[in-house]
């Protein structure tokens, strides 16, 4: 059964009403639960839970330390291309935006990757827009083949694929997928994606299942915060992750919480998420999924990232550039969005140590991909 059927069985406005109706007693019960049901999760996301934020944070912290220890996996995004045929209204790569477009050559990719390698990174996230002519599956596979020997883990954040596409990339050496649904609200999704292949909500929703079926070791999901109502989006994200975890139990799940940043095109968040709401959402997801990796990018400010550290975060990027070629060149006019935390990886590493956390640069090995013994 696909998650699409589960999602379709819910009425989003009814979810919103049910969350809004939760009482302090429901929150207390959820905080004491060893295992959360859907109603417990709703309670933790509810306005009623706002006054329980500190106990919620304490619980999230303890669970995270218990499952992960005080460690943070370090990764960096590497933008291969910003060419895109989609019209996502909130994105700097929107086909109608007049930013300089570029798809890196394999030599350029390697040059960028070597900069990140020299900074200590062994886990890379390869990012593109959706431009079948510029950066297709064969291009991605070739890029991965080129980088494989330098890195322990290569993940992709690109357009959704069918199972065969993911198999091809796994064979080339990809071990992780990040694919945000952006919003779980079909109507809003249609509005936000006026043209391009990305209009296909269901294909995107099913893609993590395609990847897991193909054998992807790590699957990351999330909603773009700022589009839909955050409580509903968080609920759907949690449900989505749980669905994948139960059925594709060999894959490790990660969840990201990309909060909308200023991007070229000037789109304003429809439903801004405050820091307080943001904390509640992260902690609630931790309680629902004690073993999920929770990912924090440089979209957030240095000060906020430092404070979010103990609440459940297990992996972080640092020193990120969101434009192709950004690590080797100064020009970042072709960026996807403006980052906030612009500290170097070394500075972030020092901050982690100062907070008693161990930065982990390598937590995977290419040997897992070799099928022969």
């Amino acid at each position: 059964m696909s998650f699409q059927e589960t999602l379709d069985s819910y009425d989003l406005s009814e979810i919103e009403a049910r969350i809004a109706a939760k009482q302090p007693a429901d929150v207390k019960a959820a905080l004491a639960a060893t295992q959360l049901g859907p109603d417990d999760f709703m309670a933790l996301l509810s306005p009623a839970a706002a006054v329980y934020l500190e106990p919620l944070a304490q619980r999230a912290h303890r669970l995270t330390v218990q499952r992960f220890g005080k460690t943070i996996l370090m990764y960096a995004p590497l933008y291969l291309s910003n060419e895109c045929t989609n019209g996502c209204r909130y994105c700097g790569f929107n086909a109608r935006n007049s930013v300089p477009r570029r798809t890196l050559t394999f030599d350029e990719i390697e040059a960028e990757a070597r900069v990140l390698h020299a900074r200590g990174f062994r886990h890379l996230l390869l990012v593109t827009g959706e431009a079948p002519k510029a950066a297709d599956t064969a291009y991605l596979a070739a890029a991965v083949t080129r980088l494989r020997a330098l890195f322990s883990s290569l993940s992709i954040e690109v357009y959704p694929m069918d199972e065969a596409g993911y198999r091809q990339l796994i064979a080339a050496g990809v071990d992780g997928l990040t694919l945000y649904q952006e919003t779980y609200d079909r109507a809003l999704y249609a509005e936000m994606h006026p043209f391009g292949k990305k209009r296909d909500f269901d294909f995107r929703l099913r893609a993590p299942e395609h990847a897991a079926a193909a054998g992807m070791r790590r699957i990351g999901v999330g909603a773009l915060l700022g589009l839909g109502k955050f409580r509903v989006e968080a609920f759907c994200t949690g449900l989505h992750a749980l669905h994948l975890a139960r059925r594709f139990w060999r894959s490790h799940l990660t969840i990201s919480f990309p909060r909308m940043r200023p991007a070229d095109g000037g789109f304003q968040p429809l439903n801004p998420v405050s820091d307080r709401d943001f904390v509640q959402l992260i902690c609630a997801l931790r309680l629902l999924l004690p073993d999920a990796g929770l990912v924090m990018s440089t979209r957030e400010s240095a000060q906020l990232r430092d404070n979010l550290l103990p609440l459940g975060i297990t992996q972080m990027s640092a020193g990120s550039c969101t434009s192709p070629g950004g690590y080797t060149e100064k020009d970042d006019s072709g960026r996807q969005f403006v980052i906030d935390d612009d500290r170097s990886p070394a500075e972030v590493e020092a901050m982690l140590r100062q907070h008693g956390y161990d930065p982990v640069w390598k937590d995977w090995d290419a040997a897992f991909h070799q099928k022969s013994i």
Partner: protein
Amino acid sequence: MDTLIIAGRSFRSRLMVGTGKFSSNAAMVAAMEGSGCEIVTVALRRVDIDNPHDSILAHIDRSKYLLLPNTSGARDAEEAVRLARLARAAGCEPWVKLEVTPDPFYLLPDPIETLKAAEILVKDGFVVLPYINADPVLAKRLQEAGTATVMPLGAPIGTNKGVRTRDSIAIIIEQAIVPVVVDAGLGAPSHAAEAMEMGADAVLVNTALAVARDPGRMSSAFRKGVEAGHEAYLAGLGRQQDRAEASSPLTGFLRN
């Protein structure tokens, strides 16, 4: 109404009953009736499946009970598959409680042969209910192979020790996407209630009924235990309180 659904078929009762070890067929029938069960399992090795006058089969009203043949005694996948096919050939519905128990002392299930047999039987069109040790990964492998349930043991068969595998069963219940039937080792109605309170979908009991002084009465007691446990689970048990909260605030920065 809250029903148990296995392979698309609905059952009102969440108590399944075994037919071994009873002192008489009358005692067995009393246990079945007292339990309110709808699924009765019968060891294929114990009955003459082709003979409607068989002493056990003749006492099971198939309009009231789903006869669930089990492969008890099978030492490997091949033997289990053969037994299941024989039962189907004799006119039983294609449901089978898969038991592969090469160890004659504790009758513990062989996980490797059970998985092998399950894969073959599912492909063969059987509705497979496998008896397993309380191993969450095995449960997932079986579920993936297409079994209709998983049936982890609470304690070795016939020991009456209760839910000794509690922590592992809790993980299976948390993760399974097929019904979880706690099978074996439940010696008292309170054990059955405990399994149901944990969120098990059903339980299977045999020895505790068969060896009771009054099997009919004991099965009625188990019925109440199962119903009480399930109802408590649905009602939402009061949770044990978490430990006291730490004092150093993690959310103080939000007040700035």
